């Protein structure tokens, strides 16, 4: 059963930041990339995705500009800022620690 990415605190932010680390993307592209990469194990809910994008923009982790999409349409493209890169590093480490701890409990060697 697919997991909603918002259920784990802060995880959605980290996933979005990771997605943007490959280059500027619009919101739909972010959702698709996450779904494809997780082989549809993760469902990205639009109702969480966009508020998260706006929140991170306000925090200065990502910045947006209007550009051309693949289909030649105007789309709002998000890009990682230096602050966002730092945040991504921090969240990745945090996640590794958290996942390690959970694994040690659930999957003892």
């Amino acid at each position, binding site marked *: 059963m697919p997991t909603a990415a918002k259920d784990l605190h802060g995880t959605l932010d980290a996933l979005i930041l990771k997605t943007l680390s490959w280059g500027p993307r*619009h*919101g*739909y592209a972010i*959702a*698709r990339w996450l779904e494809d990469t997780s082989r549809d194990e993760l469902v990205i*809910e*639009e*109702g969480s995705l*966009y*508020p998260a*994008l*706006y*929140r991170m*923009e*306000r925090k200065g982790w990502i910045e947006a500009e209007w550009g051309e*999409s693949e289909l030649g*349409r*105007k*789309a*709002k493209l998000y890009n990682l800022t230096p602050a966002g890169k730092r945040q991504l590093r921090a969240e990745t480490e945090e996640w590794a620690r958290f996942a390690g701890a959970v694994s040690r409990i659930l999957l003892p060697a």
Partner: protein
Amino acid sequence: MPTPGAFGRQLRSAIWKASVAEEVDAELAFHVEMRTREYIKRGDDPELARAKAIGRFGDIQRVNDTCRRIGEGRERDMRRAEWIHELVQDARYALRQLARMPGFTAVAALTLAIGIGATTAIFSIVHAVVLRPLPFREPDELVRVYTHQRGADASTAAANFIAWREQAKSFERIAPVEFRNLTLISADRAPEQVTASRVSADYFPMLGVRPLVGRFFSADEDQAGRGNVVVLSDRFWRERYAGDSAVVGQTIRLNAVEHVIIGVVSSAADAVGTDAHVWVPIAFTPEERADSRKGYLDVLARLRPGVTIAQAQQEMAAIGKRIETQDEDNRGRSVRLASLTEVYVGAYRSRLLILLGAVAFVLLIACVNVANLLLARGAGRGKEMAIRAALGAGRGRVLRQLVTESLVLALIGGAAGLAFAFWGVRALLASAPEDVPRLDQAGLDATTLGFALGITLLSSIVFGIVPALRTARSNLQGTLREGGRGSGVATRDRVRQLLVAAEVALSLMLLVGAGLLIRSAILLERVEPGFVPDRVFTAWMSLPETRYDSVESVTRAYDRIVTEVRSEPGVESVAGVTIIPIIGVSAQASFVPEGRADDPSNAVSFNFRIATPGLFRTLRIPIKQGRDFDERDVAGAPCALIINETAARTTWPNESAIGKVIPGVRGPTGERQRCSVIGIVGDAHDDGLREPVRPQLYFASAQAAAVLWNAMQRSMFIVARTTGDPMTMTKQLQAAVARVDPTLPLFNVRSMDARLASSLATGRFNTMLLTTLGVVGLLLAAVGIYGVVAYFVTQRTSEIGLRMALGATPGRVVRLVVGQGMRPVVLGIVVGAGLAVAASRLLGSLVFGIGTTDPVTFAAVPLVLAAVAFLASVVPARRATRVEPTQALQT
């Protein structure tokens, strides 16, 4: 003019950028569309695909709203960040600008520092004395309750106080205070006089103060015979017991009775200004409770919550009326209430607010000066402004830059002003009269600092706004084309001239105020006090009732004291008197002279004194007719009176008062006696030199009534004229008194010179302050006039050169320039004189011997001002004549 294309782009970007809502709509619509395509590609039909795409959002409107809210929050953050960034930028730029013109900056900041510093210093005093609430719980509920008789507030008799306490419903509590001098006997010290306040058990709870140590009086201790407990003032406690909390339970001997110390109270509890060392329960005796005649209590009360002073006054008036009709002794008495705050600081409020107003004028003059400086500088900055405009700064942006410069300038001036204020407050406290309540608490506290910041910001607006508007406007008028010389020189000149007129008017008002007070002070110096104060020693003493219980014993003690003091080397003459002149204290008694119907309306109210022989010789009060008291005027001999000239003139006009009789005066043992006037002496001022002298009456000490002696607490001032400096005699004279009774201390020792000087101190202080402010205002105005004329000269250099090339003499040029400079001065003088007529009325009671429209002042001040203004414009005008015609024409 922008092209239509560019204009369209600007318009679109403005709208596009402004609306977060549209951005969110577009972004979400794009997402829905992409998702729909995805579903169609997977095989859904378009309508279903779209429905599923939208469905994935859940409540799409809510998502939209959330995003918009966050987006708008971000826009606000950015605007704020940008604003702060620009402010920092502007401030840096302003500092650079100010640093580039150190001369201008120094003059402007110093001018502001003088204005802000003086205003802050005066404010800190006004705040400490007048504005700050009294240090009691809900001080607005506290009132003084006076017995009112013969048009004056008086003290209250114990029986009346008790009736008030029983009957009044308006008060939460009502409590009496009586000031007393007690003799304190300690094992290790000479006997000394301490001031004591007798209060009821209700007194401290009424004020809402708490003991620093121990406790206050219980209701049980406020009973006759049980009141041998004492509360120390914190000052006395620190001086005598080094602030040791273990004093509670120790005993001290007051008037030969052991008292147990039960607590310590802050000196803030001293609500009637008696400056008490110790507090004892009032514990009325049955005789006191029954006495409705002799008034000696100061009564305070706390209004019940919700009761107004007017309501309480109404109730007390009714109670007073009832008592008056029931009791013979209360005839002619009524009750008056006054707010305690009003009683405490009311006398100082108007005086200090006048000073605050005067100092605000100085600040205004300073602001006007700085505005003038900025205007002159703004004219030179036309080019800079035009360049900034050309580089894309809008008018608002330029305006903001200029306002920031004013603000930075004001803050520099304000900071320097605080340093001035710090020294100013110290200087004021050092030279202030000694009896102003709470003055010692003035200083740079949080409120004062807030006030200083406030006036700093306010003055940056006052002096900065007009120059900023003018300078910013100039950039829209194509200054670059004019070679940066700036346009609108004529209008700017007019503004500057109006500013000069304004500061002349302001300083004229200040100087008129100062002039009126100086004239009053000069006239006051000419008032004869009625006695010769130099080389006169004075000290107060009081005989304890326990050992001096008859008029005879009191009289004998003072006779011996006077004799002992007279025998001391260095003493020319000596006498005792119950109240000395000039100290503002008086005791009144009313008598009906013989020949008039015995009715209260025929009574004459005298300031009475009890004196030993030799008083008039000692104080050099001239005996105009008749004789002084001597050894004939003893108990049992015909009763003798001495009156002053005012009493003689007003009581027996057009005839000699010598031999006139006042019947029915109580004698030493209470018997009625006929007293006749045996001497008429000169008028000596009682209440300071400003107040007219009242009728005065002297009793011979051996013939005065016991009630009078008791009312004066069997006290006398010992007055001695000495051959040398009287203040070096204290020990010697104390020893002379000790030969009569070693337990009697001398109290309140001062020379008569010092007493006269302190009676004039308040007036001198006001005069000195207002004069200082007037001179500062005058100097600032002179600087302003100089600046305007000098500016006029630089603006018209070529014109002046041309005139001189065409044959104008230097004299004509000077006249032209000075005429230009004096025009606003004359306008300012005319307007200022008009305003001063109205404003000087506020000085009313401070002015002595002249009206508030004193023609001498109103003639002299404009002349002085015009002369200073003339000098201030002649200096730059003479410089104009040194312009080389050729050089002037080249520029």
